[in-house]
């Protein structure tokens, strides 16, 4: 079981390494969107500190959205998805591997970039730490929930727009608790409650999402 998940992750990471343009594009999108705000809003540190959690989290959601349509589309186009669906092992396990690989490729870079970008917003050290931690806990939920949407819109023309409409509303709880945690840290309140709820969302997202995703993929293959 673990070896199957490892095989899927290994294959997807190798494919991602051969197509680095996709990863780099999503990272630059994140960097640029976040950097535009201090330029547009003006350099008042108080205002920037207030804005920071929301801006960073919304940019992280949108950057994750960018890479979602390709999560299953390439495998669908070249017939690999049929092979995966016909594997003797449960399709949900394969999906779990793909979700983990997606997070490593699309989520983890955002987590690593966030503290650097947070400096632009004059965040203090502990707020930066909470920001990074909240993204580290929250981005797996984005990959998990996003996989359901990506599977549901597979093979649909104009699926990208539909995917955003489907998935972004489901991201709202993650956004609220993620940005809330950073906000609490900035204002000096404890971030622990927010982080715990975020952790619950992430666990739920990653471990329950593969089943509806697998069901949606089977429907898409019919």
């Amino acid at each position, binding site marked *: 079981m673990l070896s199957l998940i490892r095989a899927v992750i290994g294959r997807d990471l190798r494919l991602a390494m051969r197509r680095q343009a996709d990863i780099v594009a999503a990272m630059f999108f994140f960097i640029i969107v976040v950097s535009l705000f201090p330029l547009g809003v003006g350099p008042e540190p108080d205002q920037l500190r207030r804005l920071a959690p929301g801006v960073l989290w919304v940019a992280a959601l949108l950057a994750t959205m960018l890479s979602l349509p390709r999560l299953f589309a390439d495998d669908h186009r070249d017939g690999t998805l049929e092979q995966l669906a016909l*594997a003797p092992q449960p399709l949900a396990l394969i999906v779990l591997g793909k979700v983990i690989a997606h997070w490593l490729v699309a989520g983890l870079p955002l987590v690593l970039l966030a503290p650097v970008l947070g400096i632009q917003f004059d965040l203090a050290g502990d707020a930066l730490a909470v920001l990074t931690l909240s993204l580290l806990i929250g981005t797996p939920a984005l990959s998990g929930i996003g996989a359901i949407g990506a599977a549901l819109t597979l093979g649909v023309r104009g699926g990208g727009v539909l995917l955003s409409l489907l998935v972004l509303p489901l991201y709202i709880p993650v956004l609220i608790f993620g940005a809330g945690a950073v906000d609490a840290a900035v204002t000096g309140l404890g971030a622990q409650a927010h982080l715990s709820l975020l952790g619950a969302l992430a666990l739920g997202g990653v471990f329950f999402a593969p089943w509806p995703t697998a069901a949606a993929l089977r429907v898409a293959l019919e």
Partner: protein
Amino acid sequence: MLALQGRNGSGKTSLLRMLCGLTPAASGEIRWCGRPIAQIGEEFRSELCFLGHQNAIKEELTPLENLVSTARLAQEPLDEDAALAALELVGLLGREDLACRYLSQGQKRRAALARLVHEKRALWVLDEPYVALDKAATELVAGLVGAHLQRGGLAVLTTHQAVAVPAGSVRELTLGDDVAAQQRL
């Protein structure tokens, strides 16, 4: 071996997809060893090798990587020597380190068919395996299917070409217009 024939749109591919359990049958039931495949899903799929219209080849990977990663995903790890031997047999040795997007259509098909060389599962379902292949490769695939039949395996394939399979008994089934008419309903 069962060779399915019929004009375009007569439902050959649909039938194969139903046999694999990818598409549910509108009516009736498909059984493996007397039991419906919908119930014994995983047990049936561990006996099934499907090769569809699409090659299931990753353009970014080399034929060698494709072969090895497909085998790993099927939980039947293939060592590099065995994979190279399979590629040599399908005539891709010397191209094994070239990304598949640089290969021709026929070479991609060969890369996909290399999977069959070490394939031990009992039921092969092949959708137009001879498409895009030259004469030598067509005979090679027919030889692989023949060897599979000799081992006691089963094969179902669709084709528009009459290709002699060296061993095993061959039954032919031609899907006619009535099936096509039913499909449209």
